[in-house]
């Protein structure tokens, strides 16, 4: 697998990964705001957001129809749709594409659900690697607390209830997230994640993110073309009345 830069794409892709509650979405949002302010051509894409596949995914989740295999395949379908219709054309057009979760989310989750790692990786092998992948690493307790503080109603698959880890959704969630964290840590070296200490405050992390992005990506190459010069202000043509009059004579 190669990165988009290695494949000579004019664009660049930056991904963030991490557990729910690791603060990755906040960080990528702030990164997006900065890049936009800098006049960079930027596009943001979220996991699990393809319009066409969405209704099938939500039906499958609501009615608990999904097995590990179909869970994996339906997310791969969603990803492929976004990849082929949005990410690829934008990367060809020289955009900086920001992804909240990328293939590594599937590599982690699906494997925890029991899908063979080679099978999952094989399926996603059509996708190139990000040019930068930030892994927001928190202590398990920190991210669990952020999510569980308000005692939200955890959804069936979100809590990993399909794995029958525990009858208690909160306990199930803890075990499930713990296993995903292990997967992320294992992948860190292999995929050269930039490991971020996500226990630090938000501003500190963001300044590290911005610094690293500007070091690794020559941002001025990704600026929007400067706005076209305004057309000259409209001036009514001068009618040379006298000449016309003369001609008429």
């Amino acid at each position: 697998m190669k990165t988009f830069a290695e494949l000579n794409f004019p664009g660049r892709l930056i991904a963030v990964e991490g557990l729910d509650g690791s603060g990755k979405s906040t960080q990528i949002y702030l990164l997006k705001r900065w890049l936009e302010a800098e006049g960079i051509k930027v596009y943001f894409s979220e996991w699990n957001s393809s319009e066409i596949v969405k209704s099938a995914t939500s039906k499958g989740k609501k009615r608990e129809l999904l097995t590990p295999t179909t869970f994996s395949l339906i997310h791969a379908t969603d990803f492929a749709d976004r990849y082929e219709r949005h990410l690829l054309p934008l990367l060809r057009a020289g955009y900086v594409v920001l992804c909240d979760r990328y293939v590594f989310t599937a590599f982690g989750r699906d494997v925890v659900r029991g899908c063979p790692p080679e099978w999952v990786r094989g399926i996603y092998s059509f996708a190139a690697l990000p040019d930068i992948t930030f892994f927001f690493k928190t202590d398990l307790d920190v991210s669990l607390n952020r999510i569980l503080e308000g005692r939200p109603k955890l959804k069936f698959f979100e809590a990993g209830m399909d794995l029958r880890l525990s009858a208690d959704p909160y306990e199930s969630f803890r075990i499930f997230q713990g296993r995903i964290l292990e997967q992320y840590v294992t992948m860190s070296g292999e995929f050269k994640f930039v490991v971020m200490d996500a226990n630090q405050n938000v501003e500190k992390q963001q300044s590290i993110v911005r610094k690293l992005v500007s070091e690794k990506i020559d941002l001025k190459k990704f600026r929007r073309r400067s706005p076209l010069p305004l057309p000259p202000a409209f001036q009514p043509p001068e009618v040379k009345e006298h000449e016309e009059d003369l001609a008429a004579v």
Partner: protein
Amino acid sequence: MKLEDLAGKLIVVEGADGSGRSTQIARLVDWLETGGHPTVQVGLKRSTLVSKELEQAQKGNILSRTTLSLFYATDFADQLENIILPALKAGFIVLADRYIYTLMARDMVRGVDDAWLKNLYGISVVPDAVFYLSVQPQELVQRNLSKNATLDYWESGMDLGFSRDMFDSFVKYQTAMQGAFKKLQKIYGFTIIDGNRPVGSITKDLRKKIRLVLAEKGTID
């Protein structure tokens, strides 16, 4: 997945639209059930999970190659895990109106990587028998037109841009599909049935072959 552990039988009938697939399956179900065998039928785009969405997406022709391929794989996996495997465990004869081979052939014709497909469909169970009803593309055109008076967009491979003329495109696409099936036949060793013959003699042929499959595991004497 080890088929030996499963009490039932999986019998697959592959072939283009107009190859007589559905007719033959209906006849086989009749014959098997009359003979006292419980049967279950599966086919493409029949899953609870995604069949409706897949149908919609196909109508609009809005999905790219890999996406469509994975959507079909999801549809297949849903039926595999929720219908095919439980039925086989319960000792049913599962008749599949097309299986992974059609899905693979369609993708191969569209330039999808063979190794990628092999991995993707590594989840499937190996059928006890696969029959490919082979019919000349020229004959398929005639059958499709006499049935529907029109050719299907996808069965004509119009997305491939072989030709803007649908008749032309259909023949070229079906020829390419037969090539892909030949390639798959070499790997998976399924039985090619000459589908140009009358319905009755094809049925007779299929029954003879299925009887052997059933006898192998002592399902019938």
